[in-house]
């Protein structure tokens, strides 16, 4: 592995009250890698994402992005530096058409900067991006109010909003949950395409089969600690992982 490190998490902890959601965790993600993070419910996966994206500040430890300390950087600045994420719980603007939901990320300072100050028709860009994630243009899905769309579309809308920000590091928090098999199959090529474009991707997933097919490396969390890190086959062989997933008797 000679690729440069995109993200380095150093000994980070987040304590909520008396519970350590993330407990002295360290990890590294290299440029262009697709890393999957798995773990039982409450193992600290989402908290880790919240820490990286700056929505939650750690109790101790630090986070480096391309060598720069972003531990205490405001979340909107982190986005503008090139880290964008999706949320597990989607909360779109329900009364607005799906494509209008895309306007806000397209209004971002990052997008304007990348576009060199000239920015044409945001609506057109929004429609193109939505088509990319599988909003069929012929069926005019993008024009329907977000509130009327099924969960699978809302998840893909969330993905399109993250892609709109042209991130270098994309963090997908349980993107596949709530999607049908067919929808997952339609999104996987989108993710593959992002990888080919050189994006670094972190995916939190409960749908292991789909994840293992595309991930380079899997990290397993339990009780806020990393209990395994490696290729999917060897990770699932680890006794500690089996214990975490199947209970201590397993």
């Amino acid at each position: 592995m000679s690729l440069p490190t995109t993200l380095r998490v150093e000994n980070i902890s987040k304590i909520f009250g008396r519970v350590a959601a993330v407990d002295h965790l360290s990890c590294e993600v290299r440029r262009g890698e697709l890393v999957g993070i798995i773990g039982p419910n409450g193992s600290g996966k989402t908290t880790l994402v919240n820490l990286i994206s700056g929505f939650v500040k750690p109790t101790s430890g630090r986070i480096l992005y391309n060598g720069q300390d972003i531990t205490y950087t405001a979340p909107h600045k982190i986005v503008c530096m090139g880290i964008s994420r999706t949320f597990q719980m989607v909360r779109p603007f329900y009364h607005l058409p799906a494509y209008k939901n895309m306007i806000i990320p397209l209004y971002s300072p990052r997008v304007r900067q990348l576009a060199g100050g000239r920015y044409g028709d945001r609506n057109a860009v929004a429609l193109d991006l939505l088509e990319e994630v599988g909003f069929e243009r012929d069926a005019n899905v993008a024009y329907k109010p977000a509130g009327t769309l099924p969960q699978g579309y809302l998840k893909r809308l969330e993905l399109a909003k993250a892609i709109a920000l042209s991130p270098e590091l994309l963090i997908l928090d349980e993107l596949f949950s709530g999607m049908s098999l067919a929808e997952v199959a339609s999104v996987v090529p989108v993710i593959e395409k992002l990888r080919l474009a050189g994006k670094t991707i972190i995916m939190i997933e409960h749908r292991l089969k789909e994840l293992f097919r595309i991930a380079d490396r899997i990290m397993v969390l339990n009780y806020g600690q990393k209990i395994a890190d490696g290729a999917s086959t060897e990770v699932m062989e680890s006794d500690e992982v089996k214990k975490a997933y199947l209970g201590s008797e397993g």
Partner: protein
Amino acid sequence: MKKRRERIDRGIKARSEDVYALSSWREMLYLAGPRLLPAAAFLLLPLFLGAYWQKVMISVAVFALLAISWDMLAQTGMISLGQALFFGMGAYVSGILNFYFGMPPWIAIPIATVLGGALCTLILTPVLRLRGIYFSMVTLIIPLMLVRIIEATKIFGGTEGLSGMTPLPSTLTEIYLVTGVLLGVLFGLRRLMETDYGLVLKGIRDNDRSVTNAGIDIFWFKTQALFISSTIGAFAGALMTHVYMFVGMPVFALDYSILPMAAAVVGGSGTLAGAALGAVILVPLSEALRGIGGLRIVMYGLFLVVFTVAVPEGLFDYIQRRYHQMERWVEIDQ
């Protein structure tokens, strides 16, 4: 045989925001009518009104401005219970500029509008990070605090206030100044809220986390919305200083906070036009009820309750829907 209410859009082609398929005068009038009618009413009515109702009209326009300013903040997710802060700040700044520095109204009012707005924004900046009820509580308290400060320190005339301000040349000047600004603010802000910038502001209200996640500094955008809103309120206050030729502690009174909010709720918040409509209804009503003294507040409360229950989306939305859609009862089987 069951019946169901069916809604049908009126058959006018030019309904969409960017398709201009106007083919006849009738269609043009259909679109322009709802905009021209209130504008024409505001511009022509003063010529036919007596002196008393002319003053009422100024009051209507002032409260309409405060209601619009409230609605603008509400659309950005900030519920203010202290529009009196904006109003009073504009009123005092203009009063001070006129009283101590001898500036004529034509200079004092514009300066007070911008400076008053800036001062309010500055005062509220520390609480901008608070959400929901906490922001509301602080906005409620600040004007009350300022009243006590003026009372205790006796600055700017203390409890007596400052009197003998330079008036504007005539009542008609006052009316046309305030209604002109009202129409400009109303149509301008309605357009602004429809742009991508407005979408970001409304996004902050619906889901501020999602806006932050788009790399947008919500604190900075809230500051801008607050400045726009407080500037509108400050103008209303600055103007009234010269209409009353007096400025004193009553400018921070609760009336200037509650009535605009009531107007926006009755008219329908989120549309700006609804806020203005609410003021057009509530202010003359409150004048007409002046005769019954203290019971006025009771009538007023009843009125509010009836409206909130009967037309919860607000009058403006209701009228708009009836204008664009026909309703009819159709029979359905089963």
